[in-house]
């Protein structure tokens, strides 16, 4: 076996394309999404290195100047560099969206597991609450929560997280109910395995695969919700660099022809959301392949 790096790379590429041949276009969709996400994530991680200016620096160049070689995305009315603000804004939106998704998944999954397994009145009450939140327009609830809490990264993440908990809850609870009936679970119970073991060993692993897809779609949606909240002026203080807020502040200048203030934030929000959606779509097709394809 050849262990040189080039050989390893070659193997990787071969495996990669084999996956592509096996799964078809879906694989490439997934890959495309992953590339976009990786791009934005690295932008966020290496922000201090990549960004040409400090995003708060109010003296980077002329006021409201269009994109040029010095300022790839132009400057705003406080003479800040838009490109740098986009780069640092990636941190905010990724941070909030992923934190929110993690919060809601942890809460939703654990509540779904417990409620599904426990059953009875407890389950009925929880399901009722969750169904109510699920059927209600999420953004509106998030607006109410964001208005209630003081603007800040943690708080906006909470506001966004709340509306996705029911998604995980319903998914996991449904699966828990099904798996609960399985023979091997009954057997485990017969030999005296405690509920927690059953949940952890049997039910949870079965649930993970579908949850992964939901998670990526959740992040995509959380990105849109976060951008909508900050666009409306809720959730984050102006001291945080954020694409949605920059969009809101920049739209005043659109009739004057200063298009770069809203084009880039809007494009980035769309791009990032598309990236996660494509990842999710690709993942979903691969994990739950459509049978009897023609």
């Amino acid at each position, binding site marked *: 076996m050849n262990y040189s790096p080039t050989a390893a790379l070659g193997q990787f590429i071969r495996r990669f394309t084999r996956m592509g041949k096996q799964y*078809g*276009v879906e694989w490439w969709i997934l890959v495309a999404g992953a590339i976009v996400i990786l791009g934005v994530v690295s932008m966020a991680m290496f922000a201090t290195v990549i960004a040409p200016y400090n995003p708060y620096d109010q003296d980077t160049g002329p006021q409201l100047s269009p994109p040029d070689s010095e300022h790839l995305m132009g400057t705003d009315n406080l003479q800040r560099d838009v490109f740098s603000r986009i780069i640092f804004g990636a941190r905010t939106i990724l941070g909030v969206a992923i934190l929110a998704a993690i919060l809601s998944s942890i809460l939703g999954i654990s509540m779904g597991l417990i409620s599904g397994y426990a059953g009875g009145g407890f389950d009925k009450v929880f399901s*009722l*609450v969750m*169904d*109510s*939140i699920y*059927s*209600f*327009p*999420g*953004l*509106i*609830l998030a*607006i*109410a*929560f964001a*208005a*209630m809490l*003081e603007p800040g990264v943690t708080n906006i993440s909470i506001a966004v997280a709340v509306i996705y908990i029911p998604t995980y809850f319903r998914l996991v609870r449904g699966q828990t109910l099904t798996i609960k009936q399985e023979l091997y679970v009954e057997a485990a119970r017969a030999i005296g395995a405690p509920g927690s073991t059953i949940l952890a060993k049997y039910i949870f692993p079965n649930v993970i695969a579908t949850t992964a897809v939901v998670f990526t779609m959740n992040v*995509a949606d959380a990105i*849109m919700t976060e*951008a*909508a909240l900050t*666009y*409306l002026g809720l959730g984050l203080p102006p001291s945080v660099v954020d694409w*949605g807020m920059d*969009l809101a502040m920049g*739209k005043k200048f*659109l*009739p004057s022809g200063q298009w770069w203030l*809203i084009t880039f934030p*809007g494009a980035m*929000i*769309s791009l990032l*959301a*598309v990236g996660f*959606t*494509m990842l999710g*779509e690709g993942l979903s097709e691969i994990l739950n392949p*459509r049978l*009897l*394809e*023609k």
Partner: protein
Amino acid sequence: MKNLLRYIIGRTLLTIPMLFVLLSIVFVVVRVMPGDPVSAMLGGHAPEKVIEQKKEELGLNRPLIVQYGRYLLQICRLDLGDSMIFKQSVMSTLRDKLPATVELTFFAMLICLAVGIPFGAYAADKRRSAQDYGIRLYGIVIYCIPVYWLGLMLQMIFGVWLDIFPIAGRTGARMFSSTFDRTGLYILDTIVAGNVEALGDVLIHLVLPCVTLGLVLSGIFIRLTRANMLDVLKADYILAAEARGIHHRRVVYKHALLNAFVPILTMMGLQVAILMAGAVLTETTFSWPGMGRLLLERIYLRDYPTIQGVIVIFAVIVALISLVVDVIYAFIDPRLRY
């Protein structure tokens, strides 16, 4: 039929606790908000005494539980109370603003369906072709475009540069809605009043907002239609129809689509929530005097009763539509009644 009736009743009764849950959540959220409405009303110069007196008058000094109880009782009497800031009953404010949102969402939904269903069916038909992936890509991308950004773009392109459409409001600045306003649904009102000029004005103001919202939502619809159509197209009777020599296009767009229609209908029920959320953002972008804008304004003013009222109405609408959809579905598919 007896089972259907039982289902309807059961399903309706289920709506009530759901509404109750939502109302309670909203009540807590709204009361916990910092800042109080009395300052908004009386201003910075008002002496302490007057502020306290006003708070007492509005019942803001009682413990939260008591306020909650009063609130629930009011709802039971279908009384949404009066705005804390303006001496207008919440009900009349909602009556003013609700039709605007209804008109917007209705036509947006039409556009969404008009774009989503044909394209979704076409994509399902041309499975795994370039057109399919193209349409799917469009579906993904358009939904990920923030609706307010798309709105701004359309405003600039069609409203300003090309100057074809107006960019804000339901009627032109010189058109006075009081001359035809009856239900608040201006399309209906202008037709009833026989006022063609006003009808044209109202229609042209609907274009940009509804197209914006409708296009963004069509993204989901395309994907959902496609998924449903794929399922239907797999069925044996489709194969049989093709074998019998029925023209392929008729098979897809007539037989398959019709069969896929019912699941699509239920999907519509689920989309109402997203439609409402999108409406809030569309209304702020186009200065549309609807419930979405009302909600945001009253949040700024901490007008608790109105905020609660708006959310109640949203919840009721969503509950009603999903109830209707469920019942229709149960009517069509008897298995669901059990």
